[in-house]
């Protein structure tokens, strides 16, 4: 693998996710180009199909960020999402996907700077693993033009 490889990362973010203002601004304006931000109304909106499509399309790492359990804008949207997406991640691991490619962050407004930490942590794990190979059926191999 070439030295120039940078992991492709997708962040699913709940739009009510209580990032502190500075963090949200950073997310909106200063996100590095290899990280794609997808805002959803609530983590409950994230169908496992979104995650699967991202993986099949060649995403090396996925971060799903949502609110703390009792802080959901829609009262219980994130509770359902937590059960579903956690089970889905375990299911993909069962099928041979490396553990650690999908990561969750349940962030509170007081945790300033945590999102940057989580992204850095995910990137470090992915760097160690290398590009995604399993389940990424629609991915363009590393080195070819995107």
């Amino acid at each position, binding site marked *: 693998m070439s030295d120039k490889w940078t992991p492709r990362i997708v962040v699913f973010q709940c739009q009510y996710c209580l990032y502190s203002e500075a963090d949200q601004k950073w997310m909106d304006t200063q996100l590095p180009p290899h990280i794609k931000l997808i805002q959803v109304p609530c983590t409950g909106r994230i169908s496992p199909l979104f995650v699967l499509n991202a993986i099949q399309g060649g995403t090396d790492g996925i971060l799903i960020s949502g609110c703390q359990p009792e802080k959901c804008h829609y009262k219980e949207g994130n*509770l359902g999402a937590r059960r579903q997406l956690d*089970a889905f991640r*375990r299911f993909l691991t069962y099928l041979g996907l490396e553990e650690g490619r999908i990561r969750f962050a*349940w962030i509170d407004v007081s945790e300033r700077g945590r999102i940057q930490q989580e992204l850095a942590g995910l990137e470090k794990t992915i760097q160690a693993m290398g590009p995604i190979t399993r389940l990424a059926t*629609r991915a363009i191999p590393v080195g070819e033009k995107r």
Partner: protein
Amino acid sequence: MNSLTLAIRQEAARLLEEKIVDVVIGFEAGTLPLKAQPAFITRKEEAEKLVFNGFCQNNLAAYLTRFPKEKRLGIICRGCESRAVRALVIEHQHDRDKLYLIGVPCTGIIDWRKIERRVGENTLQAREEGDEVIVTTRDGEHRFRRADVLHDSCARCLHPNPVGADIVLGDPLPEGDPERAWAPVLEFEALPPEERYAYFVQETGRCIRCYACREACPMCYCTECFVDHTAPRWTESMITPGGTQAWHIVRAFHQAGRCVSCGACERACPMDIKMTYLVDKLSYDMMQQYGFEVGASDEKQPPFAAFTLDDRNRFVR
């Protein structure tokens, strides 16, 4: 003819005569040996057509959602079917008081593929005698032990007795062995990831996207399946690796906490794709994490529908 078939015919005739139900869903002899087919009986005289044996492959609960809610249905229910009916009633697919469940303890379904692999395709006749299956071909008679030719899902069946039936015909059977039931999942999980992925790719690679597994499944009743959507198109609709893998992953995932492990999907598959190991993993997780088993209770919602704040410390990362 076995005594169970007789009892079923009598009961079906009685239900239709006393106008307790409009339709009795059961099995009749198919045009081929080894394969009985579903029958929908509406007149008492037709009840004579009903049969019940180990060659009844379908899960009859799959037909429950195809009738309007006003219809009163009588369904011949083995263990898996009765659990599927329960799950469907919890999901408001039919009113329980419009259903009459004729429970039958089940000794397992015979896998015609296992027999075909042993004797070839020229089966002329097949019958059961106690613990034996007797198959007549042009070469003569072959005898098999039932246990050797049972369908895999039936061999590891946990609950062969019907739950919540209105009447139970036949004697109750001993419950299955959980260790045996979960062995395939645990064995698969113990393999290295690359082997697991290779197996998954090999199995899904044969898929022709006929969706027979979906049609056979009692829990797959969506009026529009995610693979039939064209806008937005959720998955590739061709038989590309991406398309077939997405179909098998998401089909299984939609069954999480709902699958009754009847194995009807595998029996329906024309390409003989193994797929129960997928849903069984999810059922296993649901049992380990939430203590949920399909059909164990009359009112408990499946885990993805019943979430609480008690979960708060369950998912750390």
